[in-house]
């Protein structure tokens, strides 16, 4: 009796372990593992789900944030194969920096006082503005004030929807989804009237998903200064700012913006761009 039991348990354990071993091996090809890995590499947090900014495209990563991250990492002395990209969803960015899951974040990360209490920022490297994405034939929404009584979608953990509710249209109804693609689907289906976030993100979304039936309203009503998220007390801020300044001065910045917003009918606000990095804390 006893032998049988142990045999069975051993079998169960062995098969589970085999399962886990095979899991571990194959996933090795996939970017994972923490900032500690290897010691001399760098782990950079990006979005995986934002066309034009940070997108996992098969085995590649594309978008403006990703390109800026590569440039800055090169300037910091990391070669291409020392960079590990990791997904940092909006709702997890602070925790992932605090946890040491990533060394820095380039993920449409607006510099705000609230966030500065828990993490540090370098940059900004881009200034976007909050805007609205609506159906192409929509004429009654021209700005955030028109959202009174309308339905609005935004992603979980971003503050852009709250801002509209408190500053512009108290009677707006909010839908929160984990990703913008779900918002765009709801907009295309007519269940929400608008999707709100930064104009450059909306431009990427309408270019990727729209088939020309969505448009960005084009009246940004905030300044979103995209910074490089760093853990509190990081010593990299000065070097990153120097890299950003160099990138703007040598014309790379402009090339990257143009390359990544191609086909989206979008030009960044020229009064605010390119920005000058803030002094480090």
């Amino acid at each position, binding site marked *: 009796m006893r032998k049988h039991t142990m045999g069975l348990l051993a079998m169960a354990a062995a098969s589970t372990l085999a399962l886990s071993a095979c899991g571990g091996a194959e996933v090795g090809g996939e970017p994972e593992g923490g900032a500690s890995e290897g010691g001399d590499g760098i782990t950079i947090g990006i979005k995986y789900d934002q066309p034009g900014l940070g997108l996992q495209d098969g085995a590649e990563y594309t978008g403006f944030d990703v390109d800026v991250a590569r440039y800055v990492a090169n300037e910091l002395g990391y070669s291409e194969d020392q960079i590990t990209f990791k997904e940092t969803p909006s*709702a997890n960015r*602070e*925790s992932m920096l*605090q946890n040491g899951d990533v060394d820095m974040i380039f993920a449409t990360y607006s510099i705000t006082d*609230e966030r500065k209490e*828990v993490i540090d920022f370098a940059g900004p490297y881009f200034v976007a503005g909050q805007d609205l994405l609506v159906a192409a034939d929509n004429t009654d929404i021209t700005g955030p004030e028109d959202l009174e009584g309308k*339905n609005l979608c935004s992603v*979980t*953990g971003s503050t852009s929807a709250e801002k509209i509710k408190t500053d512009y249209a108290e009677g707006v*109804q*909010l*839908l*929160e*989804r*984990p990703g913008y693609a*779900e918002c765009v*689907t*709801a907009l295309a*289906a*007519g*269940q929400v009237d608008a999707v709100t976030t930064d104009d450059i993100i909306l431009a990427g979304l309408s270019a990727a998903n729209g088939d020309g039936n969505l448009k960005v309203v084009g009246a940004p009503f905030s300044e979103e200064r995209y910074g490089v998220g760093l853990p509190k007390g990081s010593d990299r801020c000065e070097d990153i700012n120097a890299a950003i300044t160099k990138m703007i001065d040598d014309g790379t910045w402009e090339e990257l913006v143009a390359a990544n917003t191609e086909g989206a009918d979008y030009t960044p606000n020229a009064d605010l761009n390119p920005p000058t990095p803030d002094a480090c804390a």
Partner: protein
Amino acid sequence: MNDYLSGLGALLQQYDVLGAFWTNIQLTFWGALIALALGTLLALMRISPIASLRWAGATYVSIFRNTPLTIIMTFMVMGVWTALQIQLADNFEDNFFRLAVVGLAVYHAAFVCEAIRSGVNTVPLGQAEAARAIGLSFLPAARLIILPQAFRGATAPLGNTLIALLKNSTVAAAASVSWETSSTMKTMIEFNPNYLWEIFAVFAIGYVILVIPIGLLTTWLSRRLAVKR
């Protein structure tokens, strides 16, 4: 020490923790009610004389018991509401709340069905034979003889399903019910990492306080209601 206490006090005032728990309790209440009705119907189908109904009941259970609740919740918003345009209320809060209730109900109905079926299995053969012997057909036999005893026998697994439902109501976060406990706790931790333990303790103890009485009650009930044989 004073700073610590006032900081914690301010934190609990800033976020509506009790309101969040109230949301989960309401989700659980309505979810349980619908799941019980639907689950009983499914159990009836699974023991009914009609093969197609038995098949439909079994298929339902296989599908919903094996799908992660997170996916069902996402489907409620993206499939039922967005694609099929089924709106359960005019304002968003009620709408997503009700969609979450339906999501919880369709998922847990599969488990309610299995719980009742296990209760049916505690009913001795003689009871069913006696029911038929006095001329009852399927539905009257089920209603008068089998189900009342089956429910008594199923008290413990039904209680477990209710506890699971209460805890699973946190997954309503995936159906855009962002004011329930797990979302509230997540936001609180994100912006107050120094109070991590305290925040978790508040929510964990809240659930222990809710779950333990349900557990005790079902144990007591299942003993009290057990049919003496």
